[in-house]
């Protein structure tokens, strides 16, 4: 057997060995099943993306409609003192309902995911969840916040928080994920003091130690929060 033949055979053996390993790996990871899973996941992800695009478009349209209505009401108010008084009353109610962009002194709070850690297993404690956001928002309201927005989404009297696995859904908006920014207008000293209180936000504090999730806040002389751009329908409610 010549040296060249020996080299060819060795190469062939090596390639065959590699083929064997790859095929074994392939069978082990069940190529066909993941492929189907991928297709299913991708279909789900595409659905979410399409629905989110529709959602964003709807909210843009709602903001535009509210702006048009505001202009029409303003025009009508110039014709009658009674209409003007009524409009002022409604504007004040709209401001309290979160339908008017506001600014003023306050605090910015940032919540950021921590580190999963090697022994995290199925635990998701390192992820910022909707309850963390809800707790911070409620703490700020309890300390006199007058207007709050979460990552640019205005909180209203009807607002609710939901979500799973590090996703935060507020009202009809698409899900938010870390980092989540909470901007609150109000007495900034009182709010900063509340956020700095070690006994407040016990779950967040515990996970700061366990998973290094981050809670960062700072007072500011001027914070802006946008107007609410979603639905405020209460179809099942009527006055007594």
């Amino acid at each position: 057997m010549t040296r060249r033949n020996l080299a060819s055979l060795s190469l062939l053996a090596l390639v065959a060995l590699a083929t064997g390993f790859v095929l074994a790996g392939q069978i082990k990871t069940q190529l066909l099943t993941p492929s189907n899973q991928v297709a299913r996941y991708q279909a789900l992800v595409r659905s979410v993306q399409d629905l989110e695009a529709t959602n964003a478009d709807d909210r843009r349209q709602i903001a535009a409609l509210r702006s048009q209505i505001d202009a029409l009401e303003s025009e009508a108010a110039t014709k009658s003192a009674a209409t003007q008084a009524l409009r002022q009353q409604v504007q004040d109610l709209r401001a309290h309902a979160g339908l008017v962009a506001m600014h003023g002194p306050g605090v910015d709070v940032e919540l950021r995911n921590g580190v999963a850690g090697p022994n995290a297993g199925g635990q998701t404690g390192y992820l910022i969840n909707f309850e963390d956001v809800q707790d911070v928002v409620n703490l700020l309201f309890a300390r006199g916040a007058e207007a709050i927005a979460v990552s640019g989404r205005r909180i209203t009297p009807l607002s609710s928080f939901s979500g799973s696995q590090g996703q935060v859904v507020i009202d009809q908006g698409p899900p938010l994920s870390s980092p989540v920014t909470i901007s609150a207008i109000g007495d900034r000293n009182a709010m900063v003091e509340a956020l700095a209180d070690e006994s407040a936000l016990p779950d967040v504090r515990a996970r700061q130690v366990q998973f290094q999730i981050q809670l960062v806040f700072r007072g500011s002389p001027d914070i802006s929060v946008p107007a609410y751009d979603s639905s405020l329908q209460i179809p099942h409610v009527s006055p007594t």
Partner: protein
Amino acid sequence: MSARRRNRARGISVWVIALLVALVATIQLRSEVEVARSLVGVDPTSLAFLIDDLHRANDSLDAEKADLGQRRAALQSGEASAADQVLTEESNRLRALEGQIPVQGPGIVIVIDAGGLTALDLQDALNNLSAGGAEEIDVNNRRVVTGVSLSQTSAGVAIDGVVVAPPWTLSAIGDPTRLAEVADLMTQQLRADRRVRGASYRVEANIVIRSVVSPKPFVYAVAS
């Protein structure tokens, strides 16, 4: 000549096998990368829930668009009374959702008898109801909207500074079917809590909420 042909055949077979290896390896790597990319932190069940939530959210947004469209059309008519009517209706709706006037409607009533539940427990319960479609909520004759302060005091849980002693009666107006599903889950979970002596709910065709929230003037916030 035949030795040359043999070498050639051997060379071709090596290339064919190498090609196969490359092909299989590429498919394997790509499939794994795709799995990883499409599964960044979200499992399919969560995605399915997300889709359901987004469908419901977009339906609400459609309803809001339709309502706003009607209001715009009424204002565009230019009739003197149209603006006043639109504004009066808007005023009534906003007063209701801000908790400033008594309201009524279908919904559910949950009664929780427990010792040791905290403000965070009540906050979670109220948020569950809101996320489940509650449009108005009252706890022991105290009106609750998002923004009303819930705090823990030495005497117990306080709503806007007033302690609400157990048992808690949570009245929620909204879609009774959705609210009943939420209440069912909530009461099941509550009954599994050692601190809870009893948790039950009932659906009612008409709940009247007479408690109101006093509007607070803005001190720091200014319209942009």
